């Protein structure tokens, strides 16, 4: 059949082929039926698997009306969970931000041996199960470890206390800023910094006035993703927290406790706050990709 078309085309010319027999169809796209089927499959799949669970969060939360919803959010344990989540993110995110900038500076601005290996190590926490991320700190600071009892005798509680939660959160959010900045700063090269240095700027001046303005949107993008994960982390935090109400419960843990008590309205009410955070993150992220796409190296990858 393929041969026939070719022969016809040489004899009759392409114009005849496209007009007389059937309307012209672009050879590099699918027909309208196939297109409709693919669109339906894709949108149906996304609607069913992704949008439905999101919608359910809000509908379940308001099932018994606004009053119950507000009551659930006013619970003192829930309020302390919200405070703890904000505190943990306020410690973990800046620390990983500083690490991310330092690692990206070393990796992107210099050539040294073992660089690829270092990048692989930075990505390591992404391939570790959240539960294992918690387990490693239990093994390190637990009752039958070397560090745990020693720290305890000096009055420092790590496990089943806030420091453990912060450590586990740092672990799971570790790569976010670094992996955003490394490809971006590698793309930008070293020309701007070399120019600044040769004009007499100090290292800090170069960083503040040359590098930072170049990477600010990529940095914000990384911080955004890092923060979303830090506030939403469940598995790792669950293992190290000890679930002490009002003291070591973060918002996701509070959701679990309320759900397991069959207090569904309250569980979904707290969930709406986290889902709201996810939506704000997605909107800001899409805006950054749309507006500053060229200045965010990872825009197509996340």
């Amino acid at each position, binding site marked *: 059949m393929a*041969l026939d078309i070719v022969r016809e085309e040489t004899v009759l010319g392409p114009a005849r082929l496209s007009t007389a027999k059937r309307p012209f169809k672009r*050879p*590099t*796209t*699918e027909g309208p039926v*196939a297109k409709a089927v*693919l669109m339906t*499959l*894709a949108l149906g799949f*996304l609607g069913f*698997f*992704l949008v*439905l*669970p999101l919608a*359910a969060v809000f509908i379940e939360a308001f099932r018994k009306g606004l009053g119950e919803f507000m009551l659930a959010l006013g619970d003192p344990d829930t309020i302390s969970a919200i405070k703890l989540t904000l505190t943990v993110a306020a410690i973990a995110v800046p620390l990983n931000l500083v*690490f991310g900038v*330092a690692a990206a*500076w*070393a990796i992107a601005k*210099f*050539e*040294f041996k073992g660089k690829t290996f*270092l990048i692989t190590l930075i990505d390591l926490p992404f*391939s*570790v*199960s*959240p*539960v*294992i991320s918690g*387990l490693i700190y239990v*093994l*390190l600071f637990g009752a*039958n470890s070397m560090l745990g009892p020693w720290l305890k005798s000096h009055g420092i509680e790590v496990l089943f206390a806030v420091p453990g939660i912060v450590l586990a959160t*740092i*672990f799971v959010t570790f790569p976010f800023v670094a992996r955003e900045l490394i490809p971006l700063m590698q793309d930008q090269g*070293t020309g701007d910094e*070399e120019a600044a*240095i040769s004009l007499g700027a100090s290292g800090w001046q*170069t*960083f503040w006035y040359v590098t930072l303005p170049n990477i600010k949107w990529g940095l914000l993008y990384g911080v955004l993703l890092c923060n979303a994960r830090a506030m939403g982390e*469940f*598995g790792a935090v669950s*293992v190290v927290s000890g679930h002490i109400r009002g003291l070591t419960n973060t*918002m*996701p843990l509070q*959701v679990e406790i309320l*759900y397991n008590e069959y207090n*569904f309205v309250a569980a*979904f009410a707290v*969930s709406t706050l*986290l889902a709201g955070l*996810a*939506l704000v*993150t*997605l909107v800001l*992220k*899409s805006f950054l990709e749309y507006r500053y796409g060229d200045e965010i190296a990872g825009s*197509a*990858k*996340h």
Partner: protein
Amino acid sequence: MSLAAKAGWRLRTPSVIPGFGLTLGFAVTYLTLIILIPLAGVFWRTSELGWSEFVALVSDPRTKSALQLSFGASLIAAAVNVVFGTIVAWVLVRYSFPGRRIVDAVVDLPFALPTAVAGISLAAIYAPNGWVGQLLAPLGIKAAFTPLGIVIALIFIGLPFVVRTVQPVMLEIDREVEEAAATLGANRFQTIARVILPALAPALLTGFALAFARAVGEYGSVIFIAGNIPYFSEIAPLLIVIRLEEFNYAGATAVATIMLVISFLMLLLINLIQAWSRRRFGYGA
């Protein structure tokens, strides 16, 4: 820190830009303290167990069935995600329709939505009295509190990995290649099957591996819908948590070691696929 800085100084190419010792030293120190030493602890604890005790812990029937379930469900979910993820990516890359940008943003929802929230929401939807659960019940299908529910949660969590891996590679495909195939007499199906899909193969494999690796370790979104019945719907990460709550640290560590070794092998596999793809196609997947 000084050690790392000194070692790096000798190994690096000279440059006028300052701060190498400071930034690399800080980064390596932080990485070692937060990631490497704690992770090494797992392997150290395992080595203390001794081989025979390790084998005994791992071949415990409950552990075995949890590992089998975790890996089996993750394989199925990753396979489903490869098929639908590719279709979603294709629609997003090739077709223009109103709201495309919103649909594109929605794909990242599983990255942004905390896993516990996704977990209770999926459990509510697929429970026998939930929106989907009550439609499935007359058909005799139970989704919540069965392995099927676990697969559903893992599909939710893994989809963006496939889409976000395949999408940029699809954007790179040169339309001229498709035009050439069409001029040479290939119909649309042949062009897709023989020209486009082979070029996407490394990205599809990487996406599959990423979705699979994430699914094996997933905890928050699964435990609510799984029902957590031992030997039936209990996943490996949950078994680690249960062992820890029993203060059975050896049992928890043994399961964790198996999972860590497999995730490192997956990481290696992904790197090999990307290296192969760069050689074969000139770009990483």
